């Protein structure tokens, strides 16, 4: 049996676990407290690394007054219930969260202090999914797949102190980690994600990314673009401010490879990297 929504694989590739204890509150730059309210009373409150249990049942104004140094973003309970009920119709959690994000967007904006700028306190999406489900997806076929093979770091690879500091205990794990994932898109939506079963193509062909991509493309009757990259590199991209530049650089230095190499895809990535802000 192959799970269409293999959430564990999906999470470990796109949203790796945090390993070290979160920073104490004072050291965080921007603090946002979220609250679900009903008739101005707090029903639920959430702030990263904060225990806000004592504020439940109190007026929202008290919560705001006590946390004057943070932004307090409030959502009406009825709205939240409505979003959750509507989101249940979506096929999987990624799309369900995306639906709620879009619904809640206007209420999740707040004005940045001493500035005319408005900021949205939403979680950042993974750069690849964001692009493929956004602008980049529009120029791709209506149905296609992306096969990502995360590999061990090459022999003799030494992580920089910066990487060790960034990933902590996970750094060694990423150096050793190997994982495959296939993500399928249809009609601009994420249709399925799972670790493909390659048992039927034999152990030798299984090691050749080109053969795997060919097999998956035939199996699902959609074009599949493969990408092989060392896991540590992939994780670094995921945390970078300008990930596309790093992707382009890795492709250039052959740390990462497109399988098969398609000029149009490579050019698109280069353009994306060049215009990255």
């Amino acid at each position, binding site marked *: 049996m192959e799970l269409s929504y293999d959430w564990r694989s999906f999470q470990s590739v796109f949203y790796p676990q945090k390993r070290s204890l979160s920073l104490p509150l004072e050291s965080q730059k921007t603090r946002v407290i979220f609250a679900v309210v009903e008739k101005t009373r707090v029903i639920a409150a959430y702030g990263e690394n904060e225990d806000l249990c004592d504020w439940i049942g109190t007026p929202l104004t008290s919560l705001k007054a006590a946390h004057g140094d943070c932004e307090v973003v409030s959502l009406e309970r009825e709205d939240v219930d409505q979003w*959750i009920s509507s989101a249940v119709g979506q096929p999987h959690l990624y799309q369900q969260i995306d639906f709620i994000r879009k619904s809640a967007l206007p209420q999740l904006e707040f004005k940045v202090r001493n500035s005319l700028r408005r900021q949205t306190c939403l979680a950042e999406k993974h750069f690849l999914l964001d692009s493929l489900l956004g602008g980049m997806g529009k120029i791709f076929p209506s149905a296609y797949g992306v096969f990502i093979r995360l590999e061990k770091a090459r022999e003799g690879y030494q992580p920089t102190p910066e990487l060790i500091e960034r990933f902590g205990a996970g750094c060694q794990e990423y150096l050793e980690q190997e994982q495959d994932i296939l993500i399928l898109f249809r009609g601009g939506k994420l249709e399925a994600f799972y670790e493909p079963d390659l048992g039927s193509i034999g152990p030798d062909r299984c090691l050749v990314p080109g053969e795997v991509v060919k097999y998956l493309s035939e199996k699902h009757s959609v074009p599949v673009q493969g990408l092989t990259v060392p896991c540590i590199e992939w994780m670094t991209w995921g945390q970078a401010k300008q990930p596309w530049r790093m992707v382009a650089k890795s492709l250039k230095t052959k740390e990462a490879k497109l399988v098969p190499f398609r000029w149009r895809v490579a050019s698109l990535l280069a353009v994306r990297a060049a215009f990255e802000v």
Partner: protein
Amino acid sequence: MSGGEHKLQSEQQAIQLVVNYWERRPRMMRARLDELLRHGVTHIATFVPWQAMESDISHTLARFLQAVADRRMTVSLIITPEVGVHYPNSGFPKDIIQRKENLAQHAQQGPIAINMAPNSFAIPSLFAPEFQKRYFSFLARMDSFLSDLGRTQSEVLRGVEVVVTGSLWKYYRSPRDSAQSAFSGNAGEYSTHANLAFRQRVEQFFAQREFSDPNPAASNRWKTRNLEDTNRRWFFQQSEDVFRNRTLHHLRRKASYIRLSETELYTPEADPSLMYSNILQMLSGGNSDFFSLSRLIDEYSARSSMASESRAKPYLHWSSLGGFRKLSDPERQFLILKSLLLMGGQGGGIYIDAGDWFALSKNFRNRTEALARSVASKDLRIRTRALYLTPHLWSGAGSGVGASSAAPLWQELQDKIGTGARLVSSIDLVLREKNADILVVDPRFIFTRENILKIIAWVRAGKTLVIPRNALYTESARAELESIISRTQRIEIALGLPYRLHAVGDGKLFISEYGAEAGMDLGHGSGESNAQWQSFINAVFAVANIQPYCKVSDSRLAVIPMEKRGGGLGLFLLNGTRRKVSGDVIFSQAVNVSDLSVALSSAPEALADNPNSGSASRFSFEVPACGIFPLAVDGQHLNDQEERFLAAELEQNTSAHIAADSAKSELPGLENSIWS
């Protein structure tokens, strides 16, 4: 997680690794099992999603069981419906949960959504006829599957245990009410199907002769609107018990020889109390609410549910499909250890995905496995010292909307003895709790004559019972109670919370004014009323002659005291904050404190001779962030525990032998069965 061969090991497993058979193809699964075997894992657990079983045309489960048997491993098959299963809709058939009329409703008439991967969905009503029909046919299919397998390949079933859980009942709670305190408010299911079943059951229940006493019209007083909440509570509890029994019955129709285990499985990540918090965390992309998860473990461990014949073993499932995965390593380790102590100390344990387990550091795993062995072999166990009998286990006994007027009593019990206080909803379970010394009964509990007789028999053995004066007694129950207490000596106290104290046999009976009206008069939450509840509970504890093992000077620290085989305590000092905390542990008498791991591996005589251990009643500690300190505490006043350990073991062995002997005499050929 390792051990001998050919032996069902789940009983000795406080940590069970979850390896779901449907997540991988059989070929990949075999490789996974080999890998686990190399790590020394010989027992695993797997969920059997309802939908997966119904559509298992390639016999994946049979092949999986064969692969497990080939490796001489053992497996627990956890029968769903459960939440937190890595399967679309947690294994519920899509067509069932897509129909609105099949969905459950909480007390505020809204659906109950479970926001966990792989998809968020609304849970169905266990009262819906369509659900029941389909579910019991799934159980029949499971039963046939196991019996066929037993007939054709009996060796495959040798290491298989079927686990029946408490299912969805505890999740029927309103996210709004439970956000402040997980079990506050009225729990239960309020869909049309549930309401219909409730009305029918109320009519049947109060048609019993006892409620029609002194005349048939008397039964109407039990059906008034004032008692609606009370009636719903016992109705939900009864429905849950009936559902559990029916599940067992269906699974034992053909495969009667299969080993069944009844557990109460908690999945904190799916708890309705965290629903809004989870949504906010998903939107913001932040860490999970570690503090709420930690508090939930306390709430779960304070409840003890009754299985068909004995207490359901409490297990906690860290699925990583919700907030647990978003925590840092120290936070995850803290929660794993805490849940292991609280659930394992009561004969249960934890379920955790094998991948998540091996992602933790080896040092941590080794230490935790050693601890798991100690709790599984009952070298360390939590003693239940006081019970609170409530009509519904999942409704509010704590503070909040819909809580009973005796809520402060439960709160006081918890404050006084912490993990030693337990909420129960069955008198039979009270009778089985030999170590508990105090029983407090909720004013919403309905006393029948039979209940009074059972409970008084329990008190006569030297226990202390606290019951409300204005409770819901049937006429015959009231007459029986009056007749019992009329023959006893009594003391009447009118100060604070008024009560009468009676000597019943070797035990004591408190009859007090904490019914609905009295509770309102006292006014919850005010300083004066809290002092009254407190002084009342102090009086109860003084009469029962029990006192807390120790206190901590800093409220950020918590303790889990566990009785140690051979006498003394295993004391775990927990710091559930993100900063290191210094504090003192204060004992009522002088004790010796030492390293628990050394104490567990040494003979008691060796410890007594230890010249380094200094005797004192106050000890200072500095506990790191998310840290747990294991300590061994020995003292003269803690040595009576060995007798209790021996008595408990004797009782357990006696019950087991009686059951085995009866089975042998009733079931010819049992000795030659595959289990011998």
